[in-house]
Protein backbone atom coordinates (compact mmCIF):
# COMPACT_ATOMS: atom_id res chain seq x y z
CA UNK A 1 0.00 0.00 0.00
CA UNK A 2 1.38 3.38 -0.98
CA UNK A 3 1.92 5.78 1.86
CA UNK A 4 -0.58 8.47 0.83
CA UNK A 5 1.33 11.26 2.56
CA UNK A 6 3.88 11.13 -0.26
CA UNK A 7 3.76 11.70 -3.99
CA UNK A 8 4.23 8.56 -6.06
CA UNK A 9 7.85 7.41 -5.58
CA UNK A 10 8.49 10.06 -2.91
CA UNK A 11 9.94 12.87 -5.06
CA UNK A 12 7.82 15.79 -6.25
CA UNK A 13 7.07 16.04 -9.97
CA UNK A 14 9.35 19.00 -10.65
CA UNK A 15 12.30 17.17 -9.12
CA UNK A 16 11.52 14.07 -11.15
CA UNK A 17 11.38 16.10 -14.36
CA UNK A 18 14.80 17.58 -13.58
CA UNK A 19 16.26 14.12 -12.88
CA UNK A 20 14.59 12.66 -15.97
CA UNK A 21 16.09 15.35 -18.21
CA UNK A 22 19.54 14.61 -16.73
CA UNK A 23 19.08 10.87 -17.35
CA UNK A 24 18.13 11.48 -20.99
CA UNK A 25 21.22 13.67 -21.55
CA UNK A 26 23.32 11.00 -19.85
CA UNK A 27 21.94 8.39 -22.24
CA UNK A 28 22.69 10.66 -25.22
CA UNK A 29 26.34 11.11 -24.16
CA UNK A 30 27.36 7.71 -22.73
CA UNK A 31 29.88 7.96 -19.90
CA UNK A 32 29.60 11.74 -19.45
CA UNK A 33 28.63 12.84 -15.94
CA UNK A 34 25.57 15.09 -16.10
CA UNK A 35 25.26 17.50 -13.15
CA UNK A 36 21.86 17.44 -11.44
CA UNK A 37 20.28 19.17 -8.45
CA UNK A 38 20.45 16.24 -6.05
CA UNK A 39 17.86 16.44 -3.28
CA UNK A 40 18.17 15.56 0.35
CA UNK A 41 16.69 12.12 0.81
CA UNK A 42 15.44 10.54 4.03
CA UNK A 43 18.71 8.62 4.36
CA UNK A 44 22.28 9.82 4.76
CA UNK A 45 24.69 10.40 1.91
CA UNK A 46 26.62 7.21 1.30
CA UNK A 47 23.48 5.09 1.62
CA UNK A 48 22.49 5.29 -2.00
CA UNK A 49 20.80 8.69 -2.28
CA UNK A 50 21.88 9.04 -5.91
CA UNK A 51 20.65 5.60 -6.88
CA UNK A 52 17.40 6.15 -4.98
CA UNK A 53 16.71 9.39 -6.88
CA UNK A 54 17.39 7.74 -10.24
CA UNK A 55 15.18 4.79 -9.31
CA UNK A 56 12.41 7.14 -8.11
CA UNK A 57 12.51 9.01 -11.43
CA UNK A 58 12.30 5.75 -13.42
CA UNK A 59 9.73 3.77 -11.40
CA UNK A 60 6.22 3.14 -12.66
CA UNK A 61 3.54 1.34 -10.64
CA UNK A 62 3.97 -1.70 -12.94
CA UNK A 63 7.64 -2.22 -12.06
CA UNK A 64 9.13 -5.02 -10.02
CA UNK A 65 12.05 -3.74 -7.98
CA UNK A 66 15.09 -5.64 -6.74
CA UNK A 67 17.70 -4.01 -4.51
CA UNK A 68 21.10 -5.52 -3.79
CA UNK A 69 23.97 -4.46 -1.59
CA UNK A 70 27.27 -6.12 -2.52
CA UNK A 71 25.21 -8.78 -4.26
CA UNK A 72 23.01 -9.53 -1.25
CA UNK A 73 19.25 -8.90 -1.09
CA UNK A 74 19.10 -9.19 2.69
CA UNK A 75 21.58 -6.63 4.01
CA UNK A 76 20.60 -3.36 5.72
CA UNK A 77 21.01 -1.02 2.76
CA UNK A 78 19.10 -3.29 0.38
CA UNK A 79 16.28 -4.01 2.81
CA UNK A 80 15.74 -0.36 3.77
CA UNK A 81 15.71 0.93 0.17
CA UNK A 82 13.34 -1.86 -0.87
CA UNK A 83 11.00 -0.98 2.01
CA UNK A 84 11.26 2.72 1.12
CA UNK A 85 9.91 2.13 -2.38
CA UNK A 86 7.29 -0.35 -1.18
CA UNK A 87 5.94 2.41 1.09
CA UNK A 88 6.25 5.39 -1.22
CA UNK A 89 5.59 3.83 -4.65
CA UNK A 90 3.65 0.67 -3.81
CA UNK A 91 5.71 -1.31 -6.33
CA UNK A 92 6.16 -5.07 -6.31
CA UNK A 93 9.54 -6.25 -5.05
CA UNK A 94 11.50 -9.40 -5.70
CA UNK A 95 14.82 -11.02 -4.92
CA UNK A 96 14.94 -12.90 -8.23
CA UNK A 97 17.11 -11.16 -10.84
CA UNK A 98 15.07 -12.59 -13.70
CA UNK A 99 11.76 -11.19 -12.36
CA UNK A 100 12.98 -7.65 -11.72
CA UNK A 101 12.42 -4.77 -14.16
CA UNK A 102 14.53 -2.30 -12.17
CA UNK A 103 17.50 -3.43 -10.09
CA UNK A 104 19.17 -0.92 -7.81
CA UNK A 105 22.62 -2.08 -6.88
CA UNK A 106 25.39 -1.16 -4.52
CA UNK A 107 28.71 -2.34 -5.91
CA UNK A 108 27.81 -5.51 -7.83
CA UNK A 109 26.33 -6.60 -11.15
CA UNK A 110 24.12 -9.68 -10.74
CA UNK A 111 25.65 -12.99 -11.89
CA UNK A 112 22.53 -13.86 -13.89
CA UNK A 113 22.75 -12.20 -17.29
CA UNK A 114 20.51 -9.14 -17.58
CA UNK A 115 17.96 -8.87 -20.39
CA UNK A 116 16.48 -6.17 -22.61
CA UNK A 117 13.89 -4.13 -20.75
CA UNK A 118 15.73 -4.29 -17.43
CA UNK A 119 17.32 -1.20 -15.90
CA UNK A 120 20.32 -1.51 -13.57
CA UNK A 121 20.71 1.53 -11.27
CA UNK A 122 24.10 1.91 -9.58
CA UNK A 123 24.72 3.77 -6.34
CA UNK A 124 27.90 5.75 -6.91
CA UNK A 125 30.00 7.34 -4.14
CA UNK A 126 32.66 9.18 -6.23
CA UNK A 127 31.62 9.45 -9.91
CA UNK A 128 34.78 11.22 -11.08
CA UNK A 129 37.43 8.62 -12.07
CA UNK A 130 40.14 11.29 -12.00
CA UNK A 131 39.19 12.74 -8.60
CA UNK A 132 41.92 11.04 -6.56
CA UNK A 133 44.50 12.10 -9.14
CA UNK A 134 43.26 15.69 -9.52
CA UNK A 135 41.07 17.12 -6.75
CA UNK A 136 39.93 20.25 -8.64
CA UNK A 137 36.60 19.89 -10.45
CA UNK A 138 37.58 22.67 -12.91
CA UNK A 139 40.64 20.65 -13.92
CA UNK A 140 38.98 17.23 -14.21
CA UNK A 141 36.21 18.80 -16.31
CA UNK A 142 38.88 20.24 -18.62
CA UNK A 143 40.61 16.85 -18.76
CA UNK A 144 37.38 15.17 -19.90
CA UNK A 145 36.81 17.94 -22.44
CA UNK A 146 40.28 17.45 -23.94
CA UNK A 147 40.29 13.62 -23.54
CA UNK A 148 43.41 14.15 -21.43
CA UNK A 149 43.46 10.76 -19.73
CA UNK A 150 47.21 10.13 -19.56
CA UNK A 151 47.18 10.58 -15.80
CA UNK A 152 44.92 7.55 -15.38
CA UNK A 153 47.38 5.38 -17.28
CA UNK A 154 50.19 6.75 -15.10
CA UNK A 155 48.26 5.56 -12.03
CA UNK A 156 47.82 2.08 -13.49
CA UNK A 157 51.49 2.07 -14.52
CA UNK A 158 52.54 3.00 -10.97
CA UNK A 159 50.55 -0.03 -9.79
CA UNK A 160 52.65 -2.20 -12.08
CA UNK A 161 55.91 -0.53 -11.03
CA UNK A 162 55.12 -1.06 -7.36
CA UNK A 163 53.29 -4.40 -7.33
CA UNK A 164 54.26 -6.00 -10.65
CA UNK A 165 50.62 -6.05 -11.68
CA UNK A 166 47.64 -3.67 -11.84
CA UNK A 167 46.56 -3.84 -8.20
CA UNK A 168 43.31 -1.89 -8.65
CA UNK A 169 40.71 -4.51 -7.79
CA UNK A 170 37.49 -2.47 -7.72
CA UNK A 171 36.36 0.90 -9.10
CA UNK A 172 38.44 -0.06 -12.12
CA UNK A 173 38.32 2.74 -14.75
CA UNK A 174 36.74 2.09 -18.13
CA UNK A 175 36.57 3.93 -21.44
CA UNK A 176 33.11 4.28 -22.99
CA UNK A 177 32.76 4.11 -26.79
CA UNK A 178 36.34 5.37 -27.15
CA UNK A 179 35.48 8.74 -25.60
CA UNK A 180 34.82 9.27 -21.88
CA UNK A 181 36.76 7.57 -19.11
CA UNK A 182 34.15 6.53 -16.58
CA UNK A 183 34.09 5.29 -13.00
CA UNK A 184 31.96 2.13 -12.95
CA UNK A 185 31.22 2.65 -9.20
CA UNK A 186 33.09 0.38 -6.77
CA UNK A 187 32.10 -2.89 -8.44
CA UNK A 188 34.84 -5.55 -8.35
CA UNK A 189 36.80 -5.59 -11.59
CA UNK A 190 35.41 -9.11 -12.00
CA UNK A 191 32.16 -7.38 -13.03
CA UNK A 192 33.73 -4.95 -15.53
CA UNK A 193 33.27 -7.16 -18.63
CA UNK A 194 29.50 -7.24 -17.92
CA UNK A 195 29.34 -3.45 -18.39
CA UNK A 196 30.04 -3.78 -22.09
CA UNK A 197 27.35 -4.59 -24.67
CA UNK A 198 24.77 -5.42 -22.01
CA UNK A 199 21.20 -5.75 -23.33
CA UNK A 200 20.05 -3.81 -20.23
CA UNK A 201 20.16 -0.05 -19.69
CA UNK A 202 22.64 0.97 -16.97
CA UNK A 203 22.14 4.20 -15.02
CA UNK A 204 24.50 5.64 -12.41
CA UNK A 205 23.47 8.06 -9.66
CA UNK A 206 25.78 9.91 -7.27
CA UNK A 207 23.70 11.86 -4.73
CA UNK A 208 26.32 13.72 -2.71
CA UNK A 209 28.40 14.49 -5.80
CA UNK A 210 25.26 15.44 -7.79
CA UNK A 211 26.04 13.51 -10.96
CA UNK A 212 24.07 11.13 -13.18
CA UNK A 213 25.57 9.12 -16.01
CA UNK A 214 24.48 6.25 -18.19
CA UNK A 215 25.43 3.35 -20.41
CA UNK A 216 22.74 2.62 -23.01
CA UNK A 217 22.31 -1.04 -24.02
CA UNK A 218 24.93 -2.40 -26.42
CA UNK A 219 27.46 0.28 -25.54
CA UNK A 220 31.11 -0.65 -25.98
CA UNK A 221 33.00 -0.37 -22.69
CA UNK A 222 36.71 -1.18 -22.36
CA UNK A 223 38.63 -1.56 -19.10
CA UNK A 224 41.87 0.45 -19.31
CA UNK A 225 45.04 -1.64 -19.53
CA UNK A 226 48.39 -2.05 -21.32
CA UNK A 227 49.34 -4.38 -24.17
CA UNK A 228 51.83 -6.20 -21.92
CA UNK A 229 49.60 -6.04 -18.83
CA UNK A 230 46.12 -6.81 -20.15
CA UNK A 231 43.03 -6.40 -18.00
CA UNK A 232 42.16 -9.51 -15.97
CA UNK A 233 38.75 -9.97 -14.32
CA UNK A 234 40.03 -11.55 -11.13
CA UNK A 235 38.21 -13.44 -8.36
CA UNK A 236 39.16 -15.64 -5.42
CA UNK A 237 40.51 -18.94 -6.82
CA UNK A 238 37.86 -21.12 -5.15
CA UNK A 239 34.41 -22.55 -5.73
CA UNK A 240 31.42 -21.41 -3.68
CA UNK A 241 31.25 -23.51 -0.50
CA UNK A 242 27.44 -23.51 -0.50
CA UNK A 243 26.46 -23.99 -4.14
CA UNK A 244 29.72 -25.12 -5.74
CA UNK A 245 29.69 -22.43 -8.44
CA UNK A 246 33.13 -21.94 -9.97
CA UNK A 247 32.37 -18.90 -12.09
CA UNK A 248 30.73 -16.51 -9.60
CA UNK A 249 32.29 -13.69 -7.57
CA UNK A 250 33.01 -14.86 -4.01
CA UNK A 251 33.02 -13.31 -0.54
CA UNK A 252 35.46 -14.69 2.01
CA UNK A 253 33.83 -15.36 5.39
CA UNK A 254 35.96 -15.96 8.50
CA UNK A 255 34.23 -18.72 10.46
CA UNK A 256 36.39 -19.09 13.61
CA UNK A 257 39.63 -17.86 15.18
CA UNK A 258 41.59 -20.97 14.10
CA UNK A 259 42.02 -19.76 10.51
CA UNK A 260 38.78 -21.36 9.36
CA UNK A 261 37.14 -19.63 6.46
CA UNK A 262 34.67 -20.24 3.70
CA UNK A 263 33.98 -18.72 0.30
CA UNK A 264 30.40 -17.99 -0.71
CA UNK A 265 28.78 -16.35 -3.72
CA UNK A 266 28.36 -12.62 -3.15
CA UNK A 267 25.15 -12.79 -5.26
CA UNK A 268 22.67 -14.35 -2.80
CA UNK A 269 19.92 -14.86 -5.37
CA UNK A 270 22.30 -16.68 -7.72
CA UNK A 271 23.58 -18.91 -4.90
CA UNK A 272 20.12 -19.67 -3.53
CA UNK A 273 18.69 -20.62 -6.92
CA UNK A 274 21.68 -22.91 -7.58
CA UNK A 275 21.18 -24.62 -4.21
CA UNK A 276 17.45 -24.96 -4.98
CA UNK A 277 18.37 -26.56 -8.30
CA UNK A 278 20.34 -29.23 -6.45
CA UNK A 279 23.91 -27.90 -6.70
CA UNK A 280 26.05 -28.19 -3.61
CA UNK A 281 29.50 -27.05 -2.53
CA UNK A 282 32.05 -28.12 0.11
CA UNK A 283 29.89 -26.99 3.06
CA UNK A 284 26.48 -27.14 1.34
CA UNK A 285 23.56 -29.34 2.39
CA UNK A 286 24.73 -32.14 0.11
CA UNK A 287 28.31 -31.98 1.39
CA UNK A 288 27.59 -32.48 5.10
Amino acid sequence: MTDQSYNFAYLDEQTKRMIRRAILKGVAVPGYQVPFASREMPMPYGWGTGGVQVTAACLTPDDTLKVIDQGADDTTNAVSIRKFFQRTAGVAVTEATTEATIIQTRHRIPETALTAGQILVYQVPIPEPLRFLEPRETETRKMHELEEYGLMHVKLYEDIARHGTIATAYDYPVRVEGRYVMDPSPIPKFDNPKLSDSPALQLFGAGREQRIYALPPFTHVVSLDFDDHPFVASKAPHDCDLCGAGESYLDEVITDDQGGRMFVCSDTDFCRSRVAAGHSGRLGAGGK
Partner: protein
Amino acid sequence: MTPEALTGGFADAPVQSAHAFRAALEALSRPATIHSLHGATPPEPLSVAAGVLILTLCDATTPVHLAGDHDCPALRDWITFHCGAPLVAAQEASFAVGRWEALQPVARFAIGQPDYPDRAATLIVEMPELSSEGPRLRGPGIDGIATLSLPESAAFIANRGLFPLGFDCFLTAGASVAGLPRSTRVEDV
Protein backbone atom coordinates in the same frame (compact mmCIF):
# COMPACT_ATOMS: atom_id res chain seq x y z
CA MET B 1 -6.35 32.35 -23.01
CA THR B 2 -9.18 30.16 -24.28
CA PRO B 3 -10.88 27.57 -22.04
CA GLU B 4 -9.60 24.82 -24.38
CA ALA B 5 -6.06 25.55 -23.20
CA LEU B 6 -7.03 24.35 -19.73
CA THR B 7 -7.94 20.86 -20.95
CA GLY B 8 -5.95 17.99 -22.38
CA GLY B 9 -3.34 17.61 -19.63
CA PHE B 10 -2.55 14.56 -17.51
CA ALA B 11 -5.38 13.32 -15.28
CA ASP B 12 -2.93 11.57 -12.92
CA ALA B 13 0.39 13.33 -13.47
CA PRO B 14 2.72 11.24 -11.25
CA VAL B 15 1.72 7.91 -12.78
CA GLN B 16 1.13 9.04 -16.37
CA SER B 17 4.39 10.98 -16.52
CA ALA B 18 6.22 7.97 -15.04
CA HIS B 19 4.91 5.73 -17.83
CA ALA B 20 5.63 8.40 -20.42
CA PHE B 21 9.19 8.90 -19.20
CA ARG B 22 9.91 5.18 -19.31
CA ALA B 23 8.72 5.05 -22.92
CA ALA B 24 10.86 8.11 -23.77
CA LEU B 25 13.85 6.59 -21.95
CA GLU B 26 13.45 3.32 -23.85
CA ALA B 27 13.12 5.25 -27.11
CA LEU B 28 16.28 7.30 -26.56
CA SER B 29 18.36 4.44 -25.14
CA ARG B 30 17.35 2.11 -27.99
CA PRO B 31 17.38 4.33 -31.08
CA ALA B 32 15.10 3.23 -33.92
CA THR B 33 12.68 1.40 -31.64
CA ILE B 34 9.18 2.86 -31.80
CA HIS B 35 7.14 3.32 -28.62
CA SER B 36 3.74 4.78 -27.88
CA LEU B 37 2.85 7.66 -25.57
CA HIS B 38 -0.63 8.35 -24.21
CA GLY B 39 -2.40 10.52 -21.70
CA ALA B 40 -2.53 14.01 -23.20
CA THR B 41 -4.81 15.58 -25.81
CA PRO B 42 -2.94 18.69 -26.92
CA PRO B 43 -4.40 21.21 -29.40
CA GLU B 44 -3.62 20.96 -33.11
CA PRO B 45 -1.09 20.76 -34.68
CA LEU B 46 0.78 19.12 -31.77
CA SER B 47 0.75 15.31 -31.86
CA VAL B 48 -0.26 13.29 -28.81
CA ALA B 49 3.29 11.92 -28.41
CA ALA B 50 4.86 15.39 -28.59
CA GLY B 51 2.28 16.71 -26.13
CA VAL B 52 3.04 13.93 -23.66
CA LEU B 53 6.79 14.54 -24.00
CA ILE B 54 6.32 18.24 -23.26
CA LEU B 55 4.13 17.55 -20.21
CA THR B 56 6.67 14.98 -18.96
CA LEU B 57 9.91 16.89 -19.51
CA CYS B 58 9.19 20.63 -19.69
CA ASP B 59 8.56 23.12 -16.90
CA ALA B 60 9.40 26.69 -15.91
CA THR B 61 13.15 25.91 -16.03
CA THR B 62 13.16 24.72 -19.67
CA PRO B 63 12.74 27.32 -22.43
CA VAL B 64 10.69 25.90 -25.32
CA HIS B 65 10.82 26.98 -28.97
CA LEU B 66 7.76 26.47 -31.17
CA ALA B 67 8.71 26.24 -34.84
CA GLY B 68 6.56 27.03 -37.89
CA ASP B 69 2.88 26.08 -37.65
CA HIS B 70 3.38 24.98 -34.06
CA ASP B 71 3.83 28.62 -33.04
CA CYS B 72 0.10 29.27 -32.73
CA PRO B 73 -1.93 30.88 -29.91
CA ALA B 74 -3.71 27.63 -28.96
CA LEU B 75 -0.43 25.80 -28.43
CA ARG B 76 1.28 28.73 -26.74
CA ASP B 77 -1.57 28.93 -24.24
CA TRP B 78 -1.64 25.17 -23.69
CA ILE B 79 2.09 24.93 -22.91
CA THR B 80 2.00 28.05 -20.77
CA PHE B 81 -0.89 26.73 -18.69
CA HIS B 82 0.26 23.11 -18.31
CA CYS B 83 4.06 23.53 -18.06
CA GLY B 84 4.76 27.20 -17.42
CA ALA B 85 7.66 26.90 -19.84
CA PRO B 86 8.97 30.18 -21.28
CA LEU B 87 8.51 30.33 -25.06
CA VAL B 88 11.70 31.56 -26.67
CA ALA B 89 13.72 31.89 -29.88
CA ALA B 90 15.49 28.84 -31.29
CA GLN B 91 18.95 29.78 -30.01
CA GLU B 92 17.83 29.90 -26.37
CA ALA B 93 15.68 26.77 -26.35
CA SER B 94 16.20 23.62 -24.27
CA PHE B 95 13.36 21.99 -26.19
CA ALA B 96 12.12 22.76 -29.69
CA VAL B 97 8.99 21.39 -31.34
CA GLY B 98 7.96 21.44 -34.96
CA ARG B 99 8.06 19.77 -38.33
CA TRP B 100 11.55 19.07 -39.67
CA GLU B 101 11.26 21.78 -42.36
CA ALA B 102 10.13 24.31 -39.78
CA LEU B 103 13.07 23.51 -37.49
CA GLN B 104 15.59 24.40 -40.21
CA PRO B 105 18.29 25.47 -40.00
CA VAL B 106 18.99 23.04 -37.15
CA ALA B 107 22.49 24.49 -36.72
CA ARG B 108 20.94 27.32 -34.68
CA PHE B 109 20.03 25.04 -31.76
CA ALA B 110 22.23 24.66 -28.68
CA ILE B 111 24.74 21.82 -29.01
CA GLY B 112 26.23 22.15 -25.52
CA GLN B 113 29.68 23.31 -24.50
CA PRO B 114 32.86 21.24 -24.68
CA ASP B 115 32.98 21.06 -20.87
CA TYR B 116 29.18 20.73 -20.47
CA PRO B 117 27.86 18.77 -23.47
CA ASP B 118 24.59 18.19 -21.61
CA ARG B 119 23.59 21.83 -22.14
CA ALA B 120 22.23 20.98 -25.57
CA ALA B 121 18.76 21.26 -27.06
CA THR B 122 16.32 18.39 -27.46
CA LEU B 123 14.36 18.57 -30.70
CA ILE B 124 10.88 17.07 -30.90
CA VAL B 125 10.44 16.50 -34.63
CA GLU B 126 6.85 16.06 -35.78
CA MET B 127 6.71 13.52 -38.59
CA PRO B 128 3.81 12.50 -40.88
CA GLU B 129 4.53 8.90 -39.88
CA LEU B 130 7.19 6.72 -38.27
CA SER B 131 8.38 3.42 -39.63
CA SER B 132 11.37 1.11 -39.54
CA GLU B 133 12.24 1.82 -43.15
CA GLY B 134 14.97 4.34 -43.75
CA PRO B 135 18.66 5.05 -43.25
CA ARG B 136 20.75 2.50 -41.37
CA LEU B 137 21.76 3.43 -37.82
CA ARG B 138 24.59 2.19 -35.60
CA GLY B 139 25.88 3.16 -32.19
CA PRO B 140 25.09 2.92 -28.47
CA GLY B 141 21.72 1.30 -27.83
CA ILE B 142 21.69 -0.54 -31.16
CA ASP B 143 22.62 -4.21 -31.40
CA GLY B 144 24.36 -4.14 -34.77
CA ILE B 145 22.28 -2.18 -37.26
CA ALA B 146 18.78 -0.68 -37.10
CA THR B 147 16.75 1.35 -39.54
CA LEU B 148 14.36 4.24 -38.98
CA SER B 149 12.43 6.65 -41.18
CA LEU B 150 14.36 9.92 -40.78
CA PRO B 151 13.46 13.21 -42.44
CA GLU B 152 16.99 13.30 -43.91
CA SER B 153 20.48 11.88 -43.31
CA ALA B 154 22.91 14.75 -43.84
CA ALA B 155 21.90 16.83 -40.80
CA PHE B 156 22.23 13.83 -38.47
CA ILE B 157 25.59 12.83 -39.94
CA ALA B 158 26.80 16.40 -39.37
CA ASN B 159 25.38 16.32 -35.84
CA ARG B 160 27.22 13.05 -35.05
CA GLY B 161 30.40 14.72 -36.27
CA LEU B 162 30.11 17.19 -33.38
CA PHE B 163 30.04 14.42 -30.73
CA PRO B 164 30.10 14.72 -27.73
CA LEU B 165 28.35 17.95 -28.63
CA GLY B 166 25.15 18.00 -30.66
CA PHE B 167 21.38 18.07 -30.28
CA ASP B 168 19.22 15.05 -29.43
CA CYS B 169 15.96 14.22 -31.16
CA PHE B 170 12.65 12.60 -30.46
CA LEU B 171 10.68 11.84 -33.63
CA THR B 172 6.93 11.85 -33.07
CA ALA B 173 3.93 10.90 -35.20
CA GLY B 174 0.49 10.57 -33.67
CA ALA B 175 1.01 8.57 -30.46
CA SER B 176 4.32 7.06 -31.64
CA VAL B 177 7.78 8.18 -30.60
CA ALA B 178 11.32 7.16 -31.54
CA GLY B 179 14.59 8.52 -30.18
CA LEU B 180 17.69 9.63 -32.03
CA PRO B 181 20.44 10.70 -29.62
CA ARG B 182 23.53 12.53 -30.90
CA SER B 183 25.58 9.34 -30.32
CA THR B 184 23.86 7.50 -33.20
CA ARG B 185 25.78 7.12 -36.46
CA VAL B 186 23.50 7.55 -39.46
CA GLU B 187 24.64 5.94 -42.71
CA ASP B 188 24.02 7.83 -45.91
CA VAL B 189 21.95 5.80 -48.38
